[in-house]
């Protein structure tokens, strides 16, 4: 096992693993029924998120990567209960949603920034009203909420005097996304979910917003869940990375371990597909071919096996499940990495 001998990432980990996680997700599942036919019968099920579990420690940034349609955004929406999960638990500070934690409180602590900066702002509201809406809903007097909105505008680098009275169409994409961040911060949340929040921005603006996010995190002690398909950005901002494939977690681990030692063939393929700045460092592993299979009827066993170069009989027979590698906090769902799985590349059990 190559990972056993690799340098331990613990030293770089910002948070001791022993502490109770801030947010804990267990077996989260959401299937969307497909209605069709004459009487709206259910003709199929999209397995958007199928048994996803992960923890987020206080103060860290968890990056979530994966192809389009792998369930990243659905996971994000499930976390703030914009979509109700079919199954699974969401625990915030060990309090379980629906048991001793209500949705209102969860949403106050977990806020979200969406990809489309324009669509996420009401075109009829000024920026100060847009930011003040959340606090006012939660009972803050109007004047205080407006003052808070001005303060937050300044905090995200927009001069309140100039921007508070403006409408969304009068702002640039980067400015709008700053407003969206300010709006999320108006709740004084513990966790901010950034769902492709910088993906639609120009590269230079993207860098500015990323720096702003890093500054805010330091200043306010925030925890981020950063969803993106841009592996470079994820590497820059994340402490840990979770790779999703067709509604399941393929691999999760500290960012440097995962980028240096990708264990799941899918992670390897993703990293290999990253454009390199160095012409001598050419892609050696064949990049992925074809589209991801349809999540309506996902492949049996390991969902990646139809596209995997190392697939064997065992891969289509059963789902591997997340296996904890010897290097701490690095989990992978691949038969080839699980000792005794029956895969020819797997170690024999001791």
């Amino acid at each position, binding site marked *: 096992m190559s990972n056993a001998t690799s340098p331990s990432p613990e030293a770089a980990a910002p948070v001791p693993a022993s502490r109770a996680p801030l947010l804990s997700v267990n077996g989260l599942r959401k299937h969307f029924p497909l209605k069709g036919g004459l009487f709206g019968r259910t003709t199929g099920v999209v397995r958007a998120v199928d048994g996803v579990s992960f923890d987020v420690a206080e103060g860290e940034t968890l990056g979530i990567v994966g192809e389009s349609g792998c369930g990243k955004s659905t996971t994000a929406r499930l976390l703030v209960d914009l979509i109700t999960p079919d199954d699974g638990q969401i625990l915030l500070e060990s309090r379980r949603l629906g048991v001793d934690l209500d949705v*209102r409180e969860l949403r106050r602590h977990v806020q979200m920034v969406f990809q489309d900066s324009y669509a996420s702002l*009401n*075109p*009829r509201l000024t920026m100060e009203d847009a930011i003040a809406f959340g606090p006012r*809903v939660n009972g803050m007097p109007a004047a205080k909420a407006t003052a808070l909105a001005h303060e937050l505008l300044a905090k995200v680098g927009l001069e*309140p005097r*100039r921007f508070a009275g403006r*409408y969304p169409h009068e702002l640039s994409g980067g400015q709008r996304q700053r407003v969206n961040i300010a709006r999320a911060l108006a709740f004084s949340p513990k966790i901010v979910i950034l769902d492709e929040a910088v993906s639609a921005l120009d590269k230079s603006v993207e860098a500015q917003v990323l720096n702003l996010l890093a500054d805010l995190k330091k200043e306010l002690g925030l925890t981020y869940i950063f969803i993106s398909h841009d592996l470079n950005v994820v590497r820059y901002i994340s402490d840990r990375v979770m790779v999703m494939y067709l509604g399941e977690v393929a691999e999760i681990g500290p960012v440097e371990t995962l980028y240096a030692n990708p264990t799941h063939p899918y992670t390897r393929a993703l990293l290999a597909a990253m454009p390199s700045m160095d012409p001598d460092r050419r892609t050696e592993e064949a990049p992925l071919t074809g589209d991801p299979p349809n999540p309506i009827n996902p492949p049996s066993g390991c969902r990646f096996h139809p596209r995997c170069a190392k697939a064997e009989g065992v891969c289509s027979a059963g789902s591997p499940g997340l296996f904890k590698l010897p290097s701490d906090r690095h989990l992978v769902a691949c038969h080839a990495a699980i000792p005794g799985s029956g895969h020819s590349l797997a170690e024999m059990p001791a």
Partner: protein
Amino acid sequence: MSAAAPALIQIAAIEKSPGYWAGVIRRFRRDPVAMAALVIMLALVLMAIFAPLIAPADPYRSSMIRRLRPIGTPGFPLGTDELGRDMLSRLIHGGRLSLLMGVTPVFIAFFIGSAIGITAGFVGGKVNTVLMRTIDVFFAFPSVLLAIALSGALGAGIFNGLLSLTIVFVPPIARIAESVTTAVRKIEYIEAARASGASAFRIVRVHVLGNVIGPIFVYATGLISVSLILASGLSFLGLGVKPPEPEWGLMLNTLRNAIYVQPWVAALPGLMIFITSISFNLLSDGLRSAMDIKA
């Protein structure tokens, strides 16, 4: 306690952007066709309001010896009708009932239809299905037939005419309201508002209403011309306004026997209906383009 707290908060002065509606008005004023339609419409409304002051003669006074005089007859600039009444006075007075019959049903249907449509669109699911499929039942009938059938069943008269026209216009407005609301509901700022923990009612009031009322209003303005024509049609069939009241549709009906004798006089009420409905239509077009933020 809470009353004293806001006094301590100081909010710095900000540069206020001109609001959305200020922009709509600015764009509308730059549109010559829409402005012309607005002026004509205002003139018609003023004419209807001040009809007794403007009309040169009594619209009810008939005379058997001066029936169907042509346009330009001294004392009767627009001629006389089949009972010898002054056409100009009758047209001026006719605007009152015609505009009332045209605008009122649409105005009432605007509120009822918007309420139904926004509820169906925002709540979605089964509520949407029940409300919208019920609305669809009304769509099975052509609007003219529905108005005639309802009026016929309720009996002739202004109030019943208004009522049946209102019922006719609720379904189309509700359908537009529903489709606009459904589209708005899926935009991310509604998701963001939901993530803030706001109640459905508050989300509708702050985030939905302002974004859907414009398109619904534009559509309703366009319906006024249809309502005018339908109302005139009901009167023409003897279901709306009864003689001897001056009303353009009814006048068109009673004058149709005179079409070979005095075609121009007989066509005058129709011309009024045409001018009114086209100015409402152009007004609605102008509003639509003025409200389009990307224009």
